[in-house]
């Protein structure tokens, strides 16, 4: 493992974390979607780089899926859905952008502490990658729980999943990575189609509590 390969992988993974933070900063949906597309592109690059340095050609498939599906198809269709559903263009946040960013930084620190402390003897590439991957996962989750809007939640989930792919590809020689990435793509497709078909925007999150209670078949 030469130093250069390590540095590039490190850089790309760090870039993913940075973009995740950038996503938290977005307050407009369309901008968020575009930043996510960038996220997916960087992921694809990272995966491709891993394929190259691990000499694992099957990872190129994963990279291609990431590029094609997440960087192109999903953002485009999400932008269309947005238009059709008339979703607010402003992102409806639960807590302000500032605190969210702070929380994001805290999460990154947490994942560093957890990962860097614990894998001292493991090989450094995997270790750094894991720390970044964990950060991406946590930031994705943070996005899901701090955004009311359904589209931004989907994006949160996808960035979470990007973190998983990052971890999986960083784990050298891990089997089933391609299959997993395919499976997740299908899953995300389901979610997007679900939003599109059932228009369950209000089920995903709503401010109208009464409607929800009616649907539960139970009174509080």
């Amino acid at each position, binding site marked *: 493992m030469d130093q250069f390969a390590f540095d590039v992988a490190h850089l790309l993974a760090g870039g993913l974390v940075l973009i995740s933070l950038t996503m938290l900063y977005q307050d407009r949906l369309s901008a968020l979607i575009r930043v996510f597309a960038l996220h997916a592109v960087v992921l694809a690059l990272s995966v491709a780089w891993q394929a190259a340095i691990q000499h694992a050609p099957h990872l190129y498939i994963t990279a291609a899926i990431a590029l094609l599906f997440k960087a192109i198809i999903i953002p485009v269709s999400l932008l269309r859905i947005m238009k059709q559903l008339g979703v607010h263009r402003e992102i409806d946040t639960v807590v302000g952008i500032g605190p969210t960013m702070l929380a994001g930084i805290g999460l990154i620190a947490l994942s560093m502490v957890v990962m860097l402390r614990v*894998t001292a003897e493991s090989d450094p590439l995997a270790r750094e990658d894991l720390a970044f991957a*964990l950060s991406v996962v946590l930031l994705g989750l943070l996005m899901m729980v701090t955004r009311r809007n359904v589209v931004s939640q989907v994006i949160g989930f996808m960035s979470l999943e990007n973190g998983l792919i990052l971890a999986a590809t960083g784990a050298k020689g891990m089997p089933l990575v391609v299959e997993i990435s395919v499976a997740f793509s299908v899953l995300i497709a389901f*979610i997007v189609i679900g939003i599109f078909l059932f228009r369950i925007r209000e089920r995903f999150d709503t401010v109208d509590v009464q409607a929800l209670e009616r649907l539960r078949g139970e009174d509080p």
Partner: protein
Amino acid sequence: MTALPVDAVAAVLLIPIGAAALLAVLPSYRLSARLNVLATFLTLLAALSLLAVRPAPGQFLLIDDLNVVFIVLNTLVGFTTSVFSATYIAHEIEVGRLTPASLRFYHAMYQVMMFGMNLALVSNNIGVMWVAIELATLTTVMMVGIYRTPQALEAAWKYFILGSVGIALALFGTILVYMAARPVVGEGLDGMTWTILVRNVAAFDPALLNVAFVFLLLGYGTKVGLAPLHAWLPDAHAEGPTPISAVLSGLLLNVALYALLRFKILLAAAPGVIAPGPLMVTMGLTSLIFAAFMLYRRRDIKRMFAYSSIEHMGIIAFAFGMGGPLANFAGLLHMTMHSLTKSAIFFAVGHISQIKGTQKIAEIRGLTVTHPVLGWGLVLGVMAITGMPPLGIFMSEFLVVSSTFAREPLLAIPLVLGLLVAFGALLLRLGTVAFGEPLGSTAPAEASYVPMFAHLALVFVAGIYLPGPVVVWFQHVASQLG
């Protein structure tokens, strides 16, 4: 794939997948219901044969003491549920809640789900296990939404979203385990093969295993329905078809817990890792107490029993968290008994809600008067689930509570309080549902009582007599669990 033994294990997997393909194209729902029963029956036979002849572990498939019990239980409940499902579905067709087309889908999905669960149980590869559990989860998501009512769709959606996050977390955990294994056992499939992992786990990086376990606990814990990860569970149980509720509570929760147990065994064999016990004990107690209080305000009978499942999963997690031969034994026993009992209860509840045309508790009264067999069956089931002797759950609760109190008295007190609070809630509802002046339809029941009473009979027998081989298995597994 060379190590795949062409025998019972293959049959356990191939029969469901073959049946699924066949059922997907078969138009007649009567025939498919029968075929469904037949397929599950054959799977059960194949699983039973595993008791006699146990194949050597391969790279992908594994039969050992731990999962053989689960496979038999799984296929058994799968079979009885399919019998129940035949009657249940016939009624749903009659009243027009389901169409023959959706039934085709239903039956095929049923078999795919059985396949997924069986695969999760027999796989020797933690990656395959993950895939299989997700497959089973996704099929149940489909089936929960099968009624297409807004409530059903909402429940399915909730299940789907929360399940997906759970999937992601579990995957991350799995990756971490692989990462921990890689330096020791090398790259590739070996790094995910459970038998190899458990042999070498002592050399793994303990800290990495810790993080892995946190993610696995939360990921699979979502499937198990431990609080606060439980949110999908009550709605999915309440809004889906009752056979699916029975399978969810009876089997899928168990399978997810089984996965957790696999990793707990792994951790138990590794020195220097955090004890998974306190985490499981905490989550178990939280689930138990939370679900116990939630039981009081339930108006929907299926949702109530779904919460009861959360409660019991909490008890089981608590027992395994406590560890030690007694508590582990009790946990295994409790898992078995709970899946038999809870599915029996859902069988009864399914017929009851069909007859009464409602799932609202307030609109069901005096069942023992109008429908004595169903009513007393429900009474028996509730008594079993609340741990009344001489039914099986009493024995496991006896062992858990008494051994816990002797070791950690302070932990036993919330446990006992939770049990009592839950018992109070279930008994309160049972009092009006089963007794009192009858309310609602008194139409005769078109029910299949055999599955329900077969389960209850098993639970009863287990409560007073456990066969020797089962005890030996349980004890062996209990010692593995540490």
